């Protein structure tokens, strides 16, 4: 019964992430989903991954999202999607039914249960995965530098307008496609 409640709450929280009009609310719903999934993982018998999901999914990622909002400011979202809603629901229903048809019903394993400790499995048998994780963490550090970068990326430099005043006239003139203001036969460039 508790498993049912946790599953339903996780799916409802995930749906609220889509429905939230403010990004900060979507982030809070995402953190709730993460905490509920961590509880499900614990009840499934995977405490190590549950702790990792709780600390990373509900903690670190939430902090990253809030940090990103503090940089760009709060954004109100446009609820209109690109794909029509009936088509979206039809596709999701088809995918869920197909996957459910493939994997359900699950039965308990008839094979003997493998008793390899998690640390042995991770460090000895999946050592290449650990190396890949180290490389990924370095990539993430570089990505975080991109998140923290203050300077704007300039793709193409626009020609800086040269502004000049013509003597006896307060109206600026356009010369050679640029604004020119000449005063006392002197061209003054604006920064």
């Amino acid at each position, binding site marked *: 019964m508790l498993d*049912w409640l946790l*599953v339903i709450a*996780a*799916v409802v929280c*995930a749906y609220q*992430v*889509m429905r939230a009009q403010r990004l900060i609310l979507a*982030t809070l719903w*995402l953190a709730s*989903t*993460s905490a509920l*999934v961590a509880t499900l993982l614990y009840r*499934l*018998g*995977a405490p190590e*991954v549950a702790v990792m*999901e709780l600390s*990373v*999914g509900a903690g670190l*990622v939430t902090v*990253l999202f809030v940090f*990103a909002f503090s940089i*760009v400011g709060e*954004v109100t*979202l*446009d609820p*209109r999607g*690109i794909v029509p809603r009936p088509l*979206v629901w039809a*596709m*999701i229903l088809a*995918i*869920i039914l197909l996957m*459910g048809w493939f*994997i*359900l*019903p*699950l*039965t*308990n*394993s008839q094979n*003997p249960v*493998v008793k*390899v400790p*998690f640390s042995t*499995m*991770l460090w000895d*048998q999946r050592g290449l*995965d650990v190396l890949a994780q180290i490389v*990924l*963490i370095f*990539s*993430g550090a570089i*990505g*975080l530098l*991109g*998140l923290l*970068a203050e300077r704007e*990326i300039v*793709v193409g430099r626009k020609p800086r307008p040269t502004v000049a005043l013509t003597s006896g006239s307060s109206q600026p003139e356009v010369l050679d496609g640029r604004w020119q203001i000449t005063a006392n036969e002197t061209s003054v460039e604006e920064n």
Partner: protein
Amino acid sequence: MAAFLQNPLNVFALGVLGLLGMGIYGLLITRNMIKMVAVLQILVKSAVLALVLAGKAGGNINLGQSLAATVIVSDTIVAVIGLALGVQIQRRFGTADLKEIATLKG
């Protein structure tokens, strides 16, 4: 039907399907790039739960746990890089709406 619902593995499998459906729904309707990163997180949570569930059903839950740990780390890096891209796009274009920042016209 009662036996199906009483097996806890089936309950977790329905949770995997529900989270997967919500993730795909979000990917199809979301236009904001920063929110799309959050939606990807939901999809990956579904994958993590599915990996551990497969390990449990196959009798080797620690294999599922080690794979899920790798997926969690990868997912965090995807979130960091996606947020960095979203922040820079928001600064450059003034919006993170994927429809408005698209420059390919056709």
